[in-house]
């Protein structure tokens, strides 16, 4: 039940793109076509989940015992950057087809603030699911990270679908490109606002 609440909350209520504003740059950058949006969502999903598990362990067993929490930002970004590199190399060897699908998006992910954002959130924010406020344990953190990235993918794919239609519409010159895209996102965010209060 608790995991179910985490998932609903992370996918719909606190959608990472539309409510938390994390990872907007790649969202606006690659949502022109549905196929690239799907590829990017897959890669983000993979990296966020993996990066959160690794940074959670680094924080718990390396930074906290030695009193090095002030190095959190530096340590996390280094872990994420090297993780993305490793994932790229491993994927290339093990699953060339998956690498073909995700390959070009992987290097972009290091600077996707959603990854660092989720990693910092799970080790610093207290959650109230299932009783008293507490920091997440590893299981909850993993589920939260995975659900958050699902929410990212959902918003991204929905928006790419809208944007493909937008391209064929006659938009006033000053609104062409990003302005009309942002206004469309605003409508989507308003729709997602309807989920608030569910959890």
């Amino acid at each position, binding site marked *: 039940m608790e995991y179910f609440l985490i998932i609903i909350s992370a996918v719909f209520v606190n959608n990472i793109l539309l409510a938390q504003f994390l990872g907007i740059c790649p969202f606006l950058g690659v949502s022109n076509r549905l196929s690239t949006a799907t590829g990017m969502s897959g890669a983000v999903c993979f990296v966020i989940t993996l990066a959160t598990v690794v940074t959670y362990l680094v924080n718990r067993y390396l930074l906290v015992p030695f009193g090095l929490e002030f190095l959190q930002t530096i340590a996390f*970004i280094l872990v994420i950057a090297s993780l993305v590199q490793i994932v790229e190399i491993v994927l290339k060897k093990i699953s060339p087809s998956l690498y073909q699908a995700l390959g070009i998006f992987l290097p972009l992910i290091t600077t996707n603030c959603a990854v660092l954002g989720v990693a910092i959130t799970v080790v610093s924010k207290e959650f109230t699911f299932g009783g008293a406020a507490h920091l997440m344990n590893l299981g909850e953190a993993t589920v939260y990270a995975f659900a958050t990235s699902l929410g990212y993918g959902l918003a991204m794919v929905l928006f790419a679908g809208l944007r493909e239609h937008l391209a064929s519409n006659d938009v006033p010159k000053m609104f062409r490109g990003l302005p009309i895209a942002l206004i469309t996102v605003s409508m989507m965010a308003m729709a997602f606002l309807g989920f608030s209060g569910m959890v």
Partner: protein
Amino acid sequence: MGKKISLILDGFVKNNPTFVLVLGMCPTLATTTSAMNGLSMGLATLFVLVLSNIAISAIAPMVPDKVHIPVYIVVIATFVTVLQLLMQAFVPSVYATLGLFIPLIVVNCIVLGRAEAFAGKNSVGASALDGIGVGLGFTASLVVIGLVREILGSGSAFGWKLFPGDGVLAFVMAPGAFLVLGYLMALFNKYLKK
């Protein structure tokens, strides 16, 4: 002298990080719930931008080409940590409001973008000015967005009540952020972009 001033002014209109380069969207949307929050976020980014530009332009000739991006990121992360500690010590309330978005300055594309596009190739002095210009341009954009959202959303400007009542709450929440940025960007395209 004229060149120095133009380096700073470029950051406002020609290279405006928000409306022209469209970089650093996450803090732009998330922290502009009021003009004051926008200003704090802008100044925090300015701080990191200027210091990292100076440090990176100074060490750039010594950094091997292959590892320059990781080196730049570590330099930026160091200054962000310095900023975090300073803010926690001196302005804890501002730090609490901006929350997650202070450590996320590390992955703000504006900072890495300027390091890569400008500081890595130019002198320390020019890089410092470039950092000030782009940082001020970013701050100005955030204040404008914050001001519009605060006036429409809570009926006040910089905390001063302009008209009674609460305003349209949606402008302070997520949809308003996207909507205001979209309209402001359209206006910028029409009147300021050459």
